[in-house]
């Protein structure tokens, strides 16, 4: 997970020393050069490694190319790749469906559960360190590793689940079950992460708000929904965006299981299997990639708007 946004300042955060607005510091000579370098070098890296490829992906999606040979072997075919993706590519709609299922599942179960856990752990329990550690542990493991560890539970012949339930289901191999099995494993990680984000946010909520609500006679539940939740709006949005991005980007865990086939198709795996290896359907894969980009950019824009609004206030 490399997309962790931070929890932005809750509105009632401690006062930040205000810089004198509008004081434009004059920068001269060598300072100018340094500043320029400090900005330009990282920007070149990020633009060159992230944004340019993104644009190139979009451009390539209008082409047919095997990747063998130079740029002169590219044939431009307009929107034919998209037409093919939407009409004749059998794994596409299942993959889309799986991504949506991933999103809904991730949201309904681990996200809400994570929030619930955060609320519980905010109750000042003894040994809260232990609980936090326990829930947060899966977050530091890579999803690929998680797929491996849960193999011990899901394996048909040697897994714990079948031993306990006395069934013979191949949890990872049966397309009826494997998506759900994988989602459980992914949720195991996701819940802890959401819990932590939310817990931090909760700790940042001004206690006076809650005291006021208590004095007014509100129950805990009422307090949470009417007072705390609205104040946590920025965090709620972040949690939502993070969940969406994770659902869209899901890849690692299904790739180690079966390279995204037989019930575990995801848009991310479709792009990858069309491109690496001998398949090398560059244009077609780019069309799939562009679809991913478009969907994510929608959500990223929401995220940026929320976060930047916070920035603008500083």
């Amino acid at each position, binding site marked *: 997970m490399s997309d962790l946004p931070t929890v932005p300042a809750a509105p009632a955060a401690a006062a930040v020393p205000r810089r004198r607005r509008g004081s434009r510091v004059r920068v001269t000579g060598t300072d100018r050069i340094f500043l320029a370098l400090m900005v330009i070098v990282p920007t070149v890296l990020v633009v060159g490694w992230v944004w340019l490829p993104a644009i190139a992906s979009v451009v390539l999606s209008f082409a*047919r190319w*095997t*990747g*063998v*040979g130079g740029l002169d072997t590219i*044939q431009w075919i307009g929107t*034919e790749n998209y037409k*093919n993706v939407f*009409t*004749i*590519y*059998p*794994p596409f709609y299942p993959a889309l469906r799986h991504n949506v299922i991933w999103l809904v599942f991730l949201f309904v179960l681990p996200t809400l559960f994570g929030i619930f856990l955060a609320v519980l752990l905010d109750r000042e329990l003894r040994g809260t360190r232990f609980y936090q550690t326990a829930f947060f542990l899966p977050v530091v493991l890579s999803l690929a590793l998680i797929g491996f560890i849960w193999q011990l539970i899901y394996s*048909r*012949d*040697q897994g714990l689940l079948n031993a306990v339930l006395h069934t013979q289901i*191949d949890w*990872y*191999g*049966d*397309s009826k079950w494997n998506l759900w099995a994988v989602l459980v494993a992914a949720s195991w990680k996701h819940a802890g992460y959401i819990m932590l984000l939310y817990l931090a946010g909760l700790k940042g909520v001004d206690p006076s708000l809650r005291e006021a609500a208590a004095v007014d006679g509100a129950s805990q539940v009422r307090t949470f929904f009417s007072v705390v939740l609205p104040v946590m709006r920025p965090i709620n949005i972040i949690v939502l965006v993070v969940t969406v991005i994770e659902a869209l980007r899901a890849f690692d865990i299904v790739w180690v299981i*079966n390279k995204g*086939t*037989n019930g575990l198709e995801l848009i991310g795996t479709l792009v990858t*299997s*069309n491109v*690496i*290896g*001998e*398949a*090398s*359907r560059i244009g077609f894969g780019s069309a799939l990639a562009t679809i991913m980009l478009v969907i994510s950019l929608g959500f990223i824009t929401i995220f940026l708007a929320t976060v930047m609004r916070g920035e603008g206030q500083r």
Partner: protein
Amino acid sequence: MSRPRSESEYLARLRPPSVAATGISRRGFLKGTLGAGAAVSLSSLLAACGGGDDGGGGGGSTSQEVTLGSNQSDAVPKKAYADMMAASGLTVKVNTVDHENFQENINNYLQGNPDDVFTWFAGYRMRFFAAQGLAGDISDVYGGLSGFSDAFKQASTGDDGKQYFVPLTTYPWALFYRKSLWQERGYEPPKTLDELVTLSKQMQKDGLTPIAFADKDGWPAMGTFDQLNLRINGYQFHVDLMAGKKAWDSPEVKKVFDTWKGLLPYHQKDALGREWQEAAQSLLKKESGMYLLGMFVGQQFPKGKEQDDLDFFAFPEIDPSIGTGAIEAPIDGFMMAAKPKNEEGSKALLKYLGTAKAEDIALKADPTVIGASSEADTSAYTGLQQKAVEFIGSAESIAQFLDRDTRPDFASTVMLPGIQTFLKNPNDIDGLTKSLESQKKSIFTS
């Protein structure tokens, strides 16, 4: 497959130590043969020649080093390759890459900095690279080689009539079974489709799974498709279909799927969750009657009594006018890079590799393949290998396997999931074939 109940059973499931000890790879069988082992140890073992190139340009000489890119990363075959190279009389530096990676990255490899000579397969894949100008013309080497039948020469020839490939080993796809089990139950190898069905029904009554089956990795089932297509529509139709010249929603292809659907009840269930090694184990344990696979199925059988118990027969005839003359026998061998650093040395190496002597050394480690040359020493061959020699030698036409005979992007992104879809739902053949055809049209345009 259940958990092995004893240590011996567990050990039996491991590959026999004489053959690959580790690294069951999805593609392991396609190379079938021997290999030059795990990347690290071998490269360091043989890297006495040091890095850097020896003489720029295409000249070079036989006294300079020749580099070889090898995908044979399994432990034991790697040693055989090392021995083979050592006996060549040339200085050969072998660079080994894990077999799956080697294949996946072949595009990059050939366009980047390939070794002078590299392992590859015959068939469309070979012709594809030759046509792209990524492989060197070795017709002159070929002219000096003997012992390759016309079928092998044909498999080594590119679209322009020149040769680009030197065969090393090959192995047949057929229906494998355990002689002892069949003798015990009084089964006879079926000669026609009807006999196969009757036999399967009998096996079911006797409590066996008639035909073992596994398609988790997606490619094994292609073998079944190929056999059925070769029998129902003949070799030429199969080749044309692979080349994109025939329609996938034609009645001929639909007939293939229909026939397959009729046979599915006799195949092992839940194939999509099973890997071929597991299916081979069921054959070993006498839980299945037969298994349609390449001869590498023997790698799962312990050396000795069990391996000797293995036998095979050709896929039965379906259409009497077509008969059983067409078989599937993938050929592994070598190609030369388009611009090798040491061209003379490369050609000398290839000439050596095309001899029976080289093959003999390679075959010492892996008894589940046979040498491609008719001059290979068959005296040390097991019964299975002898039978394979005769089987391949007497074949009228040889196909390479679906994913070697057609465009790789078509094979991996269309056929692989397509066949898996068929196995999950064999009833919608019309829908499936229509989808395959429209996807094929979108890929085969160039």
